[in-house]
């Protein structure tokens, strides 16, 4: 990987995100919801605040890697700018790494905003952020594969909408019944919820459920990387 090219791509991707209204709106939705819930539930009490933060963070962690990432990749395919980059011999993995880093950066910004709007405890912030990042990283390869599969932004939307729902809903419904609980236990967004709950109650996050949750994310990251690599070798990025 070439450092100068990575820096150029990152700069470009950040700039294009800021210029893309669809992306800005999607990123602002969790923040907007958080502010709205905070306002609606302001009189209800302590428990609600945790609920608002949890739901907004999960929203951000799932929508950015599984919706925005594929759309960013597909946009460059649709407009043939990916082709132009490849003709200048930018490599596929440089292109994708930059996009993934930008998405992780966005996740960090949005989950931070949500944390402070919802009134999270400042003491827990770094543990919270780490949990959010690990969980989002677990979903990035899934999003990158969706991006590889889609030809244009419209098809990226079609593929990513169910992905976003499937990653967002399990932690929220895990309490419904056993089946939901078992499924949700292996989804990275639930991992975030589990780790953060452990942090809030002062438990050691490297033990019990929280450790399992961390392992789930690690498996998603490692498995995703391997699967993505196989997929990428077979399909290529732009042919």
């Amino acid at each position, binding site marked *: 990987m070439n450092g100068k090219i990575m820096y150029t791509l990152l700069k470009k991707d950040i*700039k294009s995100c800021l210029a893309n209204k669809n992306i800005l709106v999607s990123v602002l939705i969790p923040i907007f919801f958080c502010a709205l819930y905070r306002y609606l539930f302001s009189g209800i009490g302590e428990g609600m605040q945790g609920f608002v933060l949890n739901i907004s963070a999960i929203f951000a962690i799932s929508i950015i890697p599984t919706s925005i990432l594929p759309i960013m990749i597909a946009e460059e395919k649709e407009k043939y700018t990916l*082709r132009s980059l490849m003709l200048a011999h930018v490599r596929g993995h440089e292109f994708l790494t930059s996009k993934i880093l930008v998405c992780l950066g966005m996740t960090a910004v949005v989950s931070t905003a949500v944390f402070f709007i919802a009134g999270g405890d400042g003491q827990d912030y770094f543990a919270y952020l780490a949990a959010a990042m690990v969980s989002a990283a677990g979903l990035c390869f899934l999003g990158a594969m969706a991006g590889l599969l889609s030809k244009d932004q419209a098809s990226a939307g079609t593929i990513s909408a169910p992905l976003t729902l499937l990653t967002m809903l399990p932690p929220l419904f895990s309490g419904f019944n056993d089946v939901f609980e078992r499924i949700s236990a292996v989804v990275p967004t639930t991992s975030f919820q589990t780790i953060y709950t452990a942090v809030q109650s002062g438990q050691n996050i490297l033990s019990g459920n929280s450790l399992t949750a961390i392992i789930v994310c690690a498996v998603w990251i490692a498995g995703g990387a391997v699967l993505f690599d196989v997929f990428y070798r077979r399909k290529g990025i732009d042919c």
Partner: protein
Amino acid sequence: MTNILKANQLTKTFGNVKALDHCDLEIRKGEIFGYLGPSGAGKTTTIKLLTGQLHSDAGEVTVLGKNPFSPEIRQQIGIMSDMSGLYEKMTVYENLDIFADIYGVKNKKKKIKETLEAVDLYDNRKKKVEKLSRGMKQRLVFARTILHNPRLLFLDEPTANLDPATADEIRELITKLNRNGTTVFLTTHNMEEADELCHRIALLNKGHIVECGSPEELKLKYSKKKVLITTGKGKKEISLDKNELIDELEKTEDLLMIHSEEPSLRDVFLSLTKEENA
């Protein structure tokens, strides 16, 4: 003259389509080499094989003395594909800035300014690309292709879908660049363009190179060797044979015009590609 590119027995198959079948190519340093052929003949595929975008099934390619996949090559060649995209939401300047950084262009600001002036877009440098006309966009793509001073340029239909005036501008740019020493590999469907610009031409049909030579050589080779004589009585076509011609001229009293029936490059192209198709 030395070769800047050499391809030996290049072959590429997609499924059961033989896109390229044992093609030999030699591009000489400093020339504009025209690569002509009907749609689907394999022109774009050839460019992909020559520039390391695609692996061939068989055959060898040497570009500037190296394998086309070697990383050093990218600094020395420029590729304008028939599907090159620009960042529409960014300005003209920003589009070049990104690629100058990717190529590691030295004296970046000065070089971008010079290149924008060369394609006559300097005054529009702050405009968003989405606000440009089609011709301006094509000139910007061209500017981006030559930004890093490539020694060898691959242009895949650079004037397709352009109005005549803009196409002329692009052709002028190509000629100017070539005069300054850049070697050009050009594909086009425009026969007049090929005739005007190219020093040598290869005709590709169904993955085979069916003819190669300078436009003049090709036209002479496929000349019907006929002369058209116009007299007061009408027109008459006779073969370009010295004795026959003298006989004919002696018989004629009211000679108005003598016209050699030289084929155009278009005629050569059509006859060769039709023959093959038949």
